[in-house]
C-alpha cells in the first residue's frame, strides 16, 4: 500500500489513463526541479480499472488546453486549505495553439520562424486535428 499525503494547496489531476501520466507532465511543461510532485502510476480505479494520478503542490495556473489534448477523460481538482474548491472535467479543445506541431515537411511552419502552430479539431473520436496552414491531419497524442 502506497501512502501519499494530501496537499494543502495545488492541483490533483485524477483519472489519467494508465501510462499517460508522464505525457501529461511533458505536455504541461512541469518540471520536478521546480515543483513538488507526487506521481502515482497504475493505481487501481473503480471507474477505469487502472489510472495514473498526479499531485502538484502550490501550482494552480495550468494550461488546461494542453491537458485536454493528452487525456480528455482526466479530471482536475483545485485544492485550497486541503479542500477541493473547484473540479474541472476536461474536453478536447476546438483549437490549440503552440501545443502540437505539424509533421508535414512541406508545411510553412517547418521553415518559417515565429509562426504560431495552430490546429483545429476535426474528429473528437479519433482525436484528429487539422493544421491551420497546410490542412495536414495529425492525431493529438500518438
Amino acid at each position: 500500500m502506497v501512502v501519499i499525503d494530501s496537499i494543502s494547496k495545488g492541483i490533483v489531476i485524477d483519472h489519467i489513463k494508465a501510462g499517460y501520466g508522464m505525457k501529461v507532465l511533458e505536455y504541461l511543461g512541469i518540471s520536478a526541479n521546480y515543483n513538488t510532485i507526487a506521481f502515482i502510476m497504475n493505481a487501481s480505479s473503480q471507474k477505469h480499472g487502472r489510472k495514473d494520478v498526479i499531485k502538484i503542490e502550490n501550482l494552480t495556473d495550468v494550461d488546461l488546453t494542453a491537458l485536454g489534448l493528452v487525456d480528455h477523460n482526466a479530471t482536475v481538482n483545485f485544492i485550497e486549505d486541503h479542500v477541493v474548491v473547484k473540479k474541472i472535467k476536461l474536453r478536447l479543445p476546438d483549437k490549440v495553439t503552440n501545443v502540437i506541431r505539424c509533421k508535414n515537411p512541406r508545411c510553412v511552419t517547418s521553415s518559417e520562424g515565429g509562426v504560431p502552430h495552430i490546429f483545429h479539431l476535426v474528429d473528437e473520436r479519433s482525436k484528429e486535428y487539422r493544421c491551420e496552414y497546410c490542412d495536414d491531419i495529425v492525431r493529438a497524442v500518438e
Partner: protein
Amino acid sequence: MRREKGEAVLKGKCLLEPLDFSVEEMDGLFADTERIIASPEKYSEACKGKILATLFFEPSTRTRLSFEAAMLRLGGQVIGFAEAASSSVAKGESLADTIRTVSCYADLAVIRHPKEGAPKVAAMNASIPVINAGDGGHQHPTQTLTDLITLKMERGGFEGLTIGLCGDLRFGRTVHSLIKALSRYEGVTFVLISPEELMAPEYVRRDLEMNGAVRFEETRRLQDVIHRLDALYMTRVQRERFFNEEDYIRLKDIYILDAEKMKAAKPDMIVLHPLPRVNEIAAEVDDDPRAVYFKQARNGMFVRMALILALLGIETA
C-alpha cells in the same frame, strides 16, 4: 461605372484558398470576367497608378505571366521576382519581413511558394490584399477560378456534373482547390483516377465523405470511367514534388490520354488541364474540339483581371 445589385464587393480581401469567396462572390467575379472578355479595351486604364507585386519563390510560367499580363492589360504596373534566389530570402530574410516590405511598395501581392500555407503567413503580415498563386502541393485558388469559368462557359454551369480528375491527385494543388470549390454545388460527382501512391490527401477525401451534397468514387483505370464523364481534368505527375526520382520515373507516364481513349468519351465531354503538360495528353488530342485547355489558359488571364479589379475595389459594370 456602377456595380449591379447583388454583385459581390471583394475590396481588400485576400484569396488564399477557394472557399474564401462565397458562391455569390464567385458568381460576381465570373460576371465581371465575361464583361471583360466581351470588351477588354474598356478596362485598359482601370488600374492606372496601381502596382502589383509578383513574389514567386518557385518557378512558374503561366500563372506569373498571366498575372503580369492581366495587370498590364488593366493599365497597371508590375514589380517582383521570379525565383527565391533573386530575392532577399536568399540572404535569410523571413517571409513575414519580405511581405511587410512589399506592402510598402505595392497595392496587391501575388505569392507562389513551395511551402504549404506560406500565403496565409504572408497575409497575416501584409497590409495589402494577398493572392495565393500556388503553395507547394496544397492549394491553387486562381487556377480554380480559371477552371470554373471555363467549365461555366463550356458546360453552362456546375450542378449535376460528373467530373473525372486524373493523375497526380496527391500533390496536385489545382485538384485539391477544384474539388473544394466544386463541393459547394449540388449533385456534382467526382471520379478520382490515380495510382495508389498519388491518391488525394486524407483531408480532401475526408471533406468529400462529410459532404452530403456531392458524391465521389475512386478508380485506377481511366478507360473504365471515361464514357461517364462530363469533364476530364488531366494533371501532370510533378517531378518537383517527389523526394525520390525512381518513384517519379515509375509513375510519370501512368496515364496518357490519346485519340483512342477519346473515342469512348461523350461527344460533349470537355478536357481540361492546368498546364504545363508533359506526356499525359498526346498532341493528337489538341485538335479535338473537346480539348479546351488552351482556351482555359486564355480564360485564366481574364479571370485574374477581374480578380485584381475586385480586390482593389475597382468596379467593372
